[in-house]
């Protein structure tokens, strides 16, 4: 390998790392792609989507090497770009249905161009002369109080916020589970903590469900889920063991032997 190419490699890698360090500064994968596309130093209409896909995938690889967790949407985009890349590289399969790789690439280029256009538009908008900063309304609007009439008024925002307040006033109460079909984790934890000491033998998880929550249906599902979650928590604390002999077999719990209660 030529030394120059290697150096270029290193430079590109450093650049990628700089991007990664800054990943929080990006507003999603499209924003990142737009930044990457500027490296090609061409008009967005002439961008090489293949090259862009490769740059993006390199970026994701580098992030992985640095053990940086990328948000799911970055990974979704990576998977899609990998797919697009393979489609672009392979000769078109005439039997394959759906849009061609070129159509997909063109759409991505369109999205980037549109995002950039909106950015520029936003910049121009904010750069305009603005009320209260560059031009001003009448400072002393005149009202001559001859006949005063009081009119009550409200805005749509006030209206819908009032409604939202009403509809959600119960939800603002932290975890007040008065909802009949939900068995909260806290309750399950408390119940299981109390019962597990008696479980000297392996006992079916379902046996720990509270009475009234055992019949099949939403209530049972909720109680089962919460009790299972609670059992995981207690297992983590070393207070019980969990066993499942095969997939879909009953889950069984046992008080951990020798544990000081």
């Amino acid at each position: 390998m030529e030394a120059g190419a290697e150096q270029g490699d290193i430079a590109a890698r450093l650049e990628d790392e700089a991007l990664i360090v800054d990943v929080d500064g990006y507003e999603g994968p499209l924003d990142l792609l737009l930044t990457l596309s500027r490296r090609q130093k061409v008009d967005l209409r002439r961008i090489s989507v293949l090259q862009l896909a490769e740059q993006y995938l390199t970026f994701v690889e580098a992030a992985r090497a640095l053990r940086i967790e990328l948000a799911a949407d970055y990974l979704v985009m990576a998977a899609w770009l990998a797919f697009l890349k393979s489609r672009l590289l392979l000769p078109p399969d005439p039997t394959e249905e759906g849009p061609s790789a070129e159509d997909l690439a063109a759409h991505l280029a369109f999205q980037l161009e549109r995002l950039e256009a909106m950015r520029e538009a936003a910049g121009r908008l904010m750069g305009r002369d603005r009320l209260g900063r560059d031009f001003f309304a009448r400072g002393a609007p005149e009202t001559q109080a001859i006949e005063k009439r009081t009119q009550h008024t409200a805005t749509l925002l006030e209206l819908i916020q009032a409604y939202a307040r009403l509809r959600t006033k119960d939800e603002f109460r932290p975890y007040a589970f008065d909802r009949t079909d939900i068995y909260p984790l806290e309750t399950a934890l408390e119940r299981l903590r109390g019962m597990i000491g008696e479980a000297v033998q392996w006992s079916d998880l379902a046996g720990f469900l509270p009475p009234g929550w055992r019949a099949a249906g939403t209530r049972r599902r909720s109680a089962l889920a919460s009790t299972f979650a609670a059992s995981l928590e207690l297992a983590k604390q070393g207070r019980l063991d969990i066993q499942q002999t095969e997939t879909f077999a009953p889950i069984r719990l046992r008080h951990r032997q020798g544990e000081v209660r």
Partner: protein
Amino acid sequence: MNDETDKGPGLFPVPPMGEQERMIEAVLFASAEPVTSAELAKRLPEGCDVAEALVHLRNRYAGRGVHLVRVGDGWAMRTAADLGWLMRTEQVETRRLSRAAIETLAIIAYHQPVTRAEIEEIRGVTLSRGTIDQLMELDWIRFGRRRMTPGRPLTFVVTDGFLDHFGLETPRDLPGLKELREAGLLDSRGMPGAQSLPGEDEDEDPGQTELFED
């Protein structure tokens, strides 16, 4: 933006009289209070002749719908006294609707036709007579059909005046809870499997848009 250094003496030529007049015009227009000559002189570039510009400005507005007038030791723009009658509609004093009224109105808008008992159930408080009267007077609600349940209670619905005021085409354009949440207008997150409040819609799923389906 200009700053103090912009009016260092001799650095910039004094603006022409027409320009000085424009500046005073703008300042007096935008100011909430009358402005004194001294204050004007301070704001305008060095070397301006505020007194002369004021004379020009006063002449320019002579006989117009707005005058340049002296108020105490300051200057202000005021509408011509003979046109005061035009300003009469300006005297409507707008006041925020009370919390009780806006909540009641919201419930009627979202749940119409809705009975008094249902409104009280949702709000958890007794509905005062004045609230309904006020909303009726504003022409935002009216009586709907009687509910075909024991006691045949009256229902309330919103009016076209309501739609007009809130810029809605139909009550269906009101955002639903999910949409409010998505728009960030609602802080709390929905509880999975959360049930509708008692007294609300009988449907299983209180999807807001459904309320208005025909």
